[in-house]
């Protein structure tokens, strides 16, 4: 009698897992048939963010074109480095042929890059650079970095702001999670562009941790403290879109110049509708596509440049 539930559980978990194993996901089909050609793994920071979903889409297209198998796995939280590390460790166990990684932590993820090196799995970094010093200290190696220059993107956003404000204005900044190279670089670039324009002051610069709801509340608070703010730079679109709602709620739509980053579909639509002034297009799909193409080339023994820029453009 007491083993009945256990057997039941066994049956359920078997069918569940077997179901997963058979899922139409092209990635999964390689799960048990390891011999079917090279398997390339893509580990974005998360799959809750449209940016990385676009990256996945680009990567999938390239994989299909090249006839290789692509596995995409990500942590639930963009900030959960430990989980990303586990995923990579597990992929190393699976003996993937190449690893494309968007690091959740520029320094924290270095130890697992080392592990991939030891397992002779080439590592291609996308979107966010590894901390050069940490990588060098550990002796780890990566094949290439594929991404856009966030610093440059921030600068473009800053120049646009100066132009739009006509050299006079009170600006707020929504930062990403503190200590993230991506966000820091964008904000640095933005500030740089504003330098030399004494008519423009940054009245508030607060982290909203990449998230839409925090973008809303943080900017709402900024508006309370500085009702005269007339421009906002958010280090990603999610925070910018949150802020747009806060502006609407305050009845100030159109009075604040909102500049985002990433050029997600929704942000592009907001720009068209006039709710946002501009966003910076990073083209994550191109990043994903390029990364897979380069990985395939690498596996064929072709040389790959150490730094591959992906173009940035202003969408306004």
């Amino acid at each position, binding site marked *: 009698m007491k083993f009945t539930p256990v057997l039941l559980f066994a049956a359920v978990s078997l069918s569940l897992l077997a179901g997963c194993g058979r899922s139409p996901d092209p990635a999964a089909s390689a799960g048990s048939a390891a011999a079917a050609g090279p398997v390339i793994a893509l580990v974005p920071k998360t799959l809750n963010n449209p940016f990385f979903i676009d990256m996945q889409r680009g990567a999938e297209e390239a994989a299909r074109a090249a006839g290789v198998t692509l596995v995409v796995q990500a942590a639930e939280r963009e*900030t959960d480095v*430990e989980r990303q590390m586990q995923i990579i460790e*597990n992929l190393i166990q699976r003996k993937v042929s190449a690893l494309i990684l968007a690091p959740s*932590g520029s320094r924290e993820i270095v130890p697992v890059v080392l592990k991939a090196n030891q397992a002779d799995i080439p590592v291609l970094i996308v979107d966010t650079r590894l901390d050069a010093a940490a990588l060098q200290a550990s002796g780890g190696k990566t094949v290439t970095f594929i991404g856009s220059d966030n610093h440059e993107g921030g600068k473009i956003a800053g120049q646009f702001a100066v132009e739009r404000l006509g050299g006079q204005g009170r600006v707020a900044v929504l930062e990403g999670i503190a200590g993230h190279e991506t966000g820091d670089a964008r904000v640095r670039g933005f500030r740089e562009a504003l330098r030399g324009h004494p008519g423009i002051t940054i009245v508030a610069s607060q982290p909203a941790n990449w998230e839409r709801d925090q973008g809303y509340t943080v900017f709402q608070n900024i508006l309370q403290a500085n009702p005269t703010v007339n421009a906002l730079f958010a280090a990603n679109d999610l925070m910018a879109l949150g802020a747009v709602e806060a502006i609407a709620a305050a009845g100030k739509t159109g009075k604040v110049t909102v500049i985002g980053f990433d050029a997600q579909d929704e942000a592009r639509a907001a720009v068209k509708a006039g709710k946002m002034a501009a966003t910076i297009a990073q083209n994550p799909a191109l990043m994903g596509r390029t990364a897979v193409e380069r990985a395939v080339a690498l596996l064929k023994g072709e040389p790959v440049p150490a730094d591959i820029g992906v173009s940035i453009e202003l969408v306004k």
Partner: protein
Amino acid sequence: MTLPRFLVANARQAGTVAVFLVLCLVLSVLTPHFLTTSNLLNVAQQTVINAVIAVGLTYVILSGGIDLSVGSVLALAGVVLALALQAGWPVPLAIGACLVVGAACGTVNGLLVAFGRLPPFIATLGLMSVARGGALLVTDGRPVSGFDASFRWLATGEVLGIPVPVWCMLAVYGVAHFVLKRTKFGRYVVAIGGNEEASLLSGVPVAACKVGIYALGGGLAAAASVLLTARLNSAQPIAGLSYELDAIAATVIGGTSLMGGQGSVFGTLVGALIMGVLRNGLNLLGVSSYVQQVVIGAVIIAAVLLDTVFKGSKR
């Protein structure tokens, strides 16, 4: 006590163990990568952090409480450790400071619960935010990275072919099991969880025990932060978000009753292993991240449901 007899004596744990074994069996059928020495060590290593936090939660939950602050305490203790190391403190001293910070946070929880008469949920919810804020404050929100190899040995070292963190986890479990089964404190923990009033009237120092229990929970969260910091070679103030939920899940899967009074340390280890194996297996199978979350949630529910069915059949 032989293993079969041990299992019979702990029928509830036998159920959890059976679930675990079935899961392993299923995974080894589905993927050739699962049942390899390196992967099993890999799973063990990945389970360590959750498992160590879950021991502390097992004590707290056994006593009829709950601790939501462990994830934040882990972050705070971790950054303290990292800052101490970077300030040039010797490794044992820095680890000591980290554990003290964790235990101190737990002590605050315990004092609030035992003497402030706050519901544990509220007290630890408050401290969850306080500790997180503290961690962000002392680091200015930035990760603290880069440590000596001597410290990183805690994550990278091996003894007898088994990684050091796994040894640490086994040691923690050994001690925790012993304390629960063979010391007054352990007895008091389950007695308080089973019936606080009766325990008080039997002369159990309930308040002091509660403070001890929460201090232990905080201390173990700090111990987990040592291992996590060594593993990532960095301490992040935003580390450990929602780790308390993973640890609660491991504890409950392991058969500890959320009402308190019933459960075991051994069960929690198996619970943590089930979660670790599941995540590992789903990664190996290449299951999509979205489906993984569904499956993990379903397994948590199924395991606890199984427990209810199991107990129901005995009634």
